């Protein structure tokens, strides 16, 4: 390779990406033959690039969902001119490039932000259900807690996912029963608990299409607090007339129990 410029890191990257001309490629090959460490590095990087492509290929092969068809987007636009101008303005305001947030948190949070609207709906429905049924004296539940097995089986079947009624004895609450509710055209389950003082707490659960996880989301509406999260394809909302410090430990306890129940290997431990 006399008379040629030395091989640098950029050449190696372009080699990994297959973006070199035939003669450049030959130069890099010759260089790698003399530099085994670089050769190993390049080999790994090609493998990892290919692995990443292979792992993600399925997404590009999926049929395009109808809501992303350009014709539908154009039609929607004609119906409602200037969709969400505020959102676009906000997006524009943030055009600054940067980022530096931790990757993991970034994935979580961005998914969260995009699902926030939906999550809010579920939480709102759960809070509404809480308000209506918790104050009910005669018929707070459809199936009482002493028929727990039947209740859980029934609600699981209707919601379409295996549910568990967590045991909250340690938190001072006992299951008094549950009921089936409609939520945006789907079935949702409501479990109700009561403590010795007569305070009631509800756990709302409905199925989510995609298996995903989110962190806890807390909100308070007129004295009622709700803590929601998504796990294992289910959206959960714990609601009680309590403050954040009281509700969070309960939500965590529920989360842990459901997590264990969702993983048979773990629950046997």
């Amino acid at each position: 390779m006399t008379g040629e410029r030395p091989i640098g890191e950029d050449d190696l990257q372009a080699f990994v990406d297959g973006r070199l001309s035939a003669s450049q490629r030959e130069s890099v090959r010759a260089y790698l033959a003399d530099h085994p460490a670089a050769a190993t590095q390049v080999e790994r990087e090609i493998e990892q690039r290919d692995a990443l492509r292979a792992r993600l290929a399925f997404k590009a092969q999926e049929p395009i969902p109808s809501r992303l068809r350009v014709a539908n987007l154009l039609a929607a636009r004609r119906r409602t001119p200037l969709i969400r101008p505020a959102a676009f303005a906000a997006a524009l305001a943030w055009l600054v490039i940067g980022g530096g947030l931790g990757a993991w948190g970034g994935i979580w949070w961005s998914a969260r932000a995009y699902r926030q609207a939906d999550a809010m709906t579920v939480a709102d429905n759960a809070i509404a259900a809480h308000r209506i049924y918790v104050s009910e004296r005669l018929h707070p539940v459809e199936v009482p807690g002493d028929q727990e097995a039947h209740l859980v089986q029934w609600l699981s079947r209707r919601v379409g996912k295996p549910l568990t009624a967590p045991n909250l004895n340690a938190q001072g609450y006992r299951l008094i029963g549950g009921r089936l509710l409609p939520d945006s055209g789907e079935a949702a389950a409501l479990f109700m608990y009561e403590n010795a003082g007569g305070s009631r707490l509800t756990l709302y659960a409905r199925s989510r299409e995609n298996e995903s996880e989110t962190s806890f989301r807390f909100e308070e509406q007129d004295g009622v607090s709700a803590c929601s999260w998504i796990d294992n394809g289910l959206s959960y909302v714990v609601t009680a007339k309590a403050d954040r410090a009281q509700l969070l430990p309960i939500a965590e306890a529920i989360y842990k129990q459901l997590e264990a129940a969702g993983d048979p290997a773990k629950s046997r431990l």
Partner: protein
Amino acid sequence: MDEIASLLEPLIPGLRRYAWALLRDGEAADDLVQDTLERAISRWNQRRDGDLRAWLFTIQRNLFINSLRQRKVRGTPVGEEVLNDVQSPDMSPEGHAGLRDVLKGLEALPEEQRSILLLVGVEDLSYEQAAQVLGVPLGTVMSRLSRARARLRDFMEHGRGAALRRVK
């Protein structure tokens, strides 16, 4: 109108793939793609001459970064630590260990490194296009690419930087 559709539609699979790789959530990813397309359509006339693909990826990434920043103005995370022992969702059975790990490795990288690996390595954007999407000079693209690959390699070999929240 038909022109817009015929130009945009072939690019949607790539946008969905990039969005999914960033967000790892099908619905959220398609929300992002939808926002991207709506924005592209609404600004169609302001599109500069040049690369439509790079322009779309630029919009999408900016919207994504915007959503990252919204964490600061939206609700406060609480009790996140209880998720420390969340099982990572298992990949499909056909995804053997190597394939599964590469996504874990990707997750362990900062966004700008993830994006460069995805845009160049998966979406096959040219280095110039990647520079446009990321808003950095070409030289930065190359050095960032090199760093990102080194870090991914390191992760795959040593599991370092494996600070995924999985304290068990």
